[in-house]
């Protein structure tokens, strides 16, 4: 549901079986005691990366919209998300 991948009848059974097999393999992680182990937040040590806040040219409105399936008046066009009042 969260993934918004539009499951259809038959999909649930198909994926459920495969994902159960994969999750059964993944379950072996439980064998490890990781109580005192810190999670990897980043794999290479990088200090805070800052740069000067200098404006640089970005995409034009036309370029930004060029790949949109639907655009109108310089905006991305999407179905209405609210009912009319």
């Amino acid at each position, binding site marked *: 549901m*969260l*993934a*918004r*991948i*539009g*499951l*259809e009848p038959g999909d649930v059974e198909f*994926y459920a079986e*495969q*994902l159960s*097999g*994969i*999750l059964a*393999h*993944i*379950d*072996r*992680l*439980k*064998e*490890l005691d*990781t109580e005192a*182990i*810190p*999670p*990897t*937040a*980043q*794999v*290479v040590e*990088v200090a805070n*990366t800052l*740069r000067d806040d200098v404006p640089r040219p970005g*995409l034009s409105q036309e*370029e*930004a919209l*060029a*790949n*949109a*399936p*639907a655009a109108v008046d310089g905006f*991305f066009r*999407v*179905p*209405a*998300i609210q009912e009319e009042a």
Partner: protein
Amino acid sequence: MSESANLTELTIKETARLLRLRSFSAAELVTAHVEQIERVDNRVKAFLRFTPELWEKQAEEADRRISRGDLGPLVGIPMAVKDVLCVRGVETTAGSRILSGFKPPYTGTAVSRLFAAGAVMLGVTNCDEFAMGSSTENSAYHPTHNPWDLDRVPGGSSGGSAAAVAAGEAMIALGTDTGGSIRQPAALCGVVGMKPTYGRVSRYGLIAFASSLDQIGPFTRSVEDAAIVLDAMAGHDPLDATSSTRQNDVLRDFDAGVKGMRLGVPREYYDVEGIEPAVKAAIDAAIKSLRDAGAEIVDVTLPHTDYGLAAYYIIAPAECSSNLARFDGVRYGFNQDGQNITESCERTRRKGFGTEVRRRVMLGTYALSSGYYDAYYLKAQKVRTLIKRDFDAAFEKCDAIISATSPTVAFPIGAKTQDPLSMYLCDVLTLGGNLAGLPGISLPCGMTDEVLPVGLQVLAPQWREDVGLRVARAYEVASGVKAGVAPLV
């Protein structure tokens, strides 16, 4: 011309010399490759699209640079680019239907740097959808065939790039490696493939799969060529905050050999489950060759190897489910309209994503969902720390680690498509390098009796691409095994 076949079997180094001697022009070199593509690509299917407008302009410019006396090694070198690297105005789809028609408004840094160095782009190569797969069968367009045996896969996800170089269709190609997607297809196609240290090459302009693991790297037909391409791409980029400012002169001690170096053979990799006898025999011969060349071979251990795949298949899908949330049918390419925005989004993703991508998005969404986060994602990130510590400890005892790249040679098309876990196991020897951020190279170490290539993997400590390339080069010299172009008669 009669030389045409030879022009498509050269390395960068040889080509650069011949271009300066005016043995042929950059334009003729491109023509030879286009002729080779016309001869073999209907069988290999390495490419998705061709870029004649680029190759014409870039070859002309290369010839001008050569006539001005430009000695850059990449001037005029024909290159193929994996379908996940944005090139301005060139349709880039990540092997997916959801990006069909997408023309990036900018060119990514790695490709820009190679263009600036004079490389000539021939086209866009096939890959598993969003780089998820180990056989290139997950492409939404068509499978790619291994040039050494057309009934077999080229590996993946960068299978089109590996096959293009192995078939003489391109001299160099770019790929990306998240769990082995450069090294494994390089091994299966008998070419050199390199994944740099995480942060060595800017990811700006790379369509993201798993951002903490992805790296861009080259496919070539010699170790030296890999070093040359890496050298041209590497370095800090203000547009990718994870790209590093660290320097590494990969060409300086390149030919210094392995005498006195300690090379670690991890027993968990050496005896990995499912390793084919022919692969093991080739690795044994490679170990002997390196020992004869003066290296000290030491036994090392990576005790958490058995947990690597499990950790990887939490972390990579978690990152992918988050990265792929942007494909909602509003901003790019493909769209299927629905009654409302939720329905449009679901329909677009239903028709736009293939089976493997949907599987990983589900897995990742599950692993990140509240109530499961600690048990899966956090746990996997802790195990990642253990895996990285394994490598840290191993590198106390050795300068580099050697193993097979893939437990198997190229397998028949269709052999693993019904069983995702068996496909995932293709990367069991490579994904540790991604989890630990290490540079890794795969280079050819011989052929089986069935004339299928075997790859030797060299892993080096973070930021020590120079060490990995030096070991790989020493093996190449000592063994005399070279990446060749498949005959494709």
